[in-house]
């Protein structure tokens, strides 16, 4: 159970970064960290003790494999996370070009 708790703590660290930071890049880092925590939790749920990787080979018998379904979901989620990061960074760079700073408090004041 403690491994699930540690994954939850990592998620809370990411959410703390989104809520409490004033620098736009730190907010984006918080989103990325929260996403890593979710992927970690998925793989930890699907692990079987003394299991093998879900890849067959010609000389090993089919026994005791870990769950392949969370791995398929995580594979999709990793690439989608990259797409989200790229789009966030493009928006952040656009904001920097217009306002000259990454500070969200100043951006809120300089509206226009």
């Amino acid at each position, binding site marked *: 159970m403690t491994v699930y708790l540690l994954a939850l703590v990592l998620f809370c660290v990411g959410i703390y970064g989104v809520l409490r930071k004033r620098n736009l890049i730190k907010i*984006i880092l918080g989103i990325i960290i929260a996403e890593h925590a979710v992927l970690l939790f998925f793989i930890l749920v699907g692990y*079987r003790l003394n299991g093998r*990787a879900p890849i067959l080979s010609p000389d090993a018998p089919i026994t005791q*494999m870990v769950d392949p379904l969370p791995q398929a979901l995580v594979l999709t989620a990793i690439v989608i996370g*990259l797409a989200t990061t790229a*789009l966030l960074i493009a928006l952040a760079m656009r904001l920097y070009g217009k306002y000259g700073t990454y500070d969200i408090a100043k951006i809120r004041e300089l509206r226009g």
Partner: protein
Amino acid sequence: MVELYILLFLMIIGSLVALEVKDLLSSVAALGAVGLGLCLTFLIRKAPDVALTHLVVEILSVIILIRATLKKGLPAVPTGGWVFPSAIGLGFGIVLVLVAIQCFPELPVFGEPKLRVAQYYLDHGLQQTGAANLVASVILDFRAFDTLGEVTVLFTAAMGVLAVVRTVGRKSGAMRGEDR
């Protein structure tokens, strides 16, 4: 099991460093360390497909992040009171952890997953699809709709980045309404 705990502590400490350090380039480097710890966790939990994909995707996202933070961004100094917002943040975190602890007995014990759906994929995967990589047979034969959705999301993200970046069709350097 010990190495799993060591890697998880490394990831938590690395993420705290990434959020607290004042220099932006150092925080991106700490994020790279978090990603490397995650990749090693995937490897020791017997998921080589996921580890390979995550490693190369992490490299690419660190390159993109460095592109945004190089030579930019002096960090901000927080002004005003910090007691009340920190208390709210901490209270939110504690409530989240307490609620989640109530749900933990519902999860399977770590190490014994209930393979209700995946047992069929493990037993019949080789003879129905002929692929030796069972994860590949899951994402391209049994659950191919999710892959179609992911291809669509990647396409939309590429179009979104191109739409944000381009300035053809606007006056150079000026947003609308500046020269009124």
